């Protein structure tokens, strides 16, 4: 009941967006509270954001600012306590139940690759298609195509244990792309990788994204990564998580790794870093 009330009050303030709007993803007054017997945590409050088709949005913030909570709500894993999440104008959540027809159009990449060790690389990539009931033939073709896209040609028959951390994460990205998702959600996908691999994966991700024209929400705590990849960088502040600022990043694409040495790039990173450090005081 209370969720509905909050929802109604939020919708009363704003006009309902038309389904035909160009927005890929729209968040309207999204909030999340965790209630347990002992504690009551206000994780996120009044998050409103519109993401256009083909846009790459990075979300940064200190650990504990609710970025992962936000992403889990977008992925249909955690229900919001307030507000609305619209994917191409369709509501993802009905109260605390998720609309599975909307969820099945999302691709999610987690911090851990979370591959299934009993399946080969190709089988892991094609798992979403298998769950959907695609034919074996289609699955094989698509798996080969995606393996090529993420630079894993020749490894289709390998098993996850035979791959390095970066390669596993590539498989996870390919798996998320298998259903040609309308929206790709990534939760610190390169957080567990070493700095060099991470840098290479950033360039790779940009290439993959340009090739698929995917819309991406990318959560990270690495400012350089956020600026390098993002068309916009959303800065969240903690307790409760709120949007502090949204910074547009104007560098031409494709961006080479050298863009990071440009003075303007450095200035943006510095500006965001200061903003992040300010909150600690």
């Amino acid at each position, binding site marked *: 009941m209370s969720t509905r009330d909050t929802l109604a009050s939020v919708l009363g303030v704003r006009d309902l967006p038309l389904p035909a709007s160009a927005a890929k993803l729209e968040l309207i007054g999204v909030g999340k509270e965790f209630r347990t017997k002992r504690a009551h945590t206000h994780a996120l409050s009044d998050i409103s954001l519109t993401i256009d088709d083909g846009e790459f949005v990075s979300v940064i913030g200190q650990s504990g600012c609710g970025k992962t909570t936000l992403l889990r709500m977008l992925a249909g894993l955690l229900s919001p306590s307030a507000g609305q999440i619209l994917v191409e104008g369709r509501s993802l959540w009905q109260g605390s139940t998720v609309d599975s027809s909307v969820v099945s159009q*999302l691709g999610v990449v*987690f911090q851990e690759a979370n591959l299934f060790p*009993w399946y080969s690389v190709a089988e892991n990539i094609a798992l979403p298609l298998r769950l959907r009931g695609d034919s074996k033939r289609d699955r094989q073709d698509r798996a080969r195509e995606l393996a090529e896209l993420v630079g894993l040609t020749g490894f289709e028959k390998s098993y996850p244990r035979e791959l390095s951390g970066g390669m596993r994460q590539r498989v996870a990205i390919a*798996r998320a792309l298998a259903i040609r998702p309308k929206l790709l959600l990534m939760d610190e996908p390169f957080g567990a990788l070493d700095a060099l691999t991470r840098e290479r994966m950033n360039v790779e991700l940009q290439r993959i994204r340009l090739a698929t024209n995917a819309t991406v929400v990318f959560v990270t705590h690495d400012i350089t990564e956020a600026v390098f990849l993002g068309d916009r960088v959303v800065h969240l502040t903690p307790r409760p998580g709120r949007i502090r600022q949204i910074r547009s990043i104007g560098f031409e694409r494709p961006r080479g790794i050298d863009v990071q040495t440009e003075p303007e790039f450095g200035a943006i990173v510095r500006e965001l870093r200061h903003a992040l450090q300010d909150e600690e005081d």
Partner: protein
Amino acid sequence: MARKLLPWLSTPLILVAFVVLWDVFVRVNDIDELVLPRPLTVWHSLVEVVQKPATWEHARITGTETVGGFLIALACGVAVGVVLGKVRWMERGLRPLIVASQVVPKVALVPLFVIWFGFGMTSKVIMSAMLAFFPIMLNVQLGVRSVEAGQRDVMRSLDASRWQTFKHLELKSTMPYAFAGMEVGIVFAIIGTIVGEYLGGNEGLGYLVVRTLNDLDAPALFAVIILLSALGLLLYFIVNGLKRFFIPWHESVYSQLDVNR
């Protein structure tokens, strides 16, 4: 390559060394062959025992009892383990009873089973099932609990049905635990059968052990013990072989297969 061959070289070498030491020990200390026969005497006795058809009948009975008990333990252990692993409150409610029944020395129950089920195969099958049940049940329960949260998230984000989640994730990730339980379980099942045969009845290799002891026929006693060990090894390797077939992707299997990694 060299490391792959190592167990195939080391095992026979150690066995040969053991037999030689055994022989030297008996001769040097001039031990009565009634107490510890020489390896060669045991070998002759073994050849003799193996040639008797009655021995094979006893072995067949012991094998049947063990496999029967093990299969019952497997069915019950998987069923109970899955339920207790899934239903938290049930596990909490039953935990004291489970711990208590584990601590009870179950071998002490054999005389009761003899009273209830007679001297036939039933009492042995039940004994072996009881011993094999716990390791299987506990491992399955642990396996059901140990499905990784991240992999569950993947299935949820793919909008997988309960059946799909079970088939692609829960079943596969519980299997290594079930096999770990089965490897212990099959050994326990043999112990249960043999103890059962010691204490009641007139058939099976366990009974043969008791009879050769009563005859004070030490070489034959050794021969039967060797047969029992062979039966144990055979059953263990069958379970191990099934494991290699069903979960070739698991660390416990592939690290056995290619040690060079």
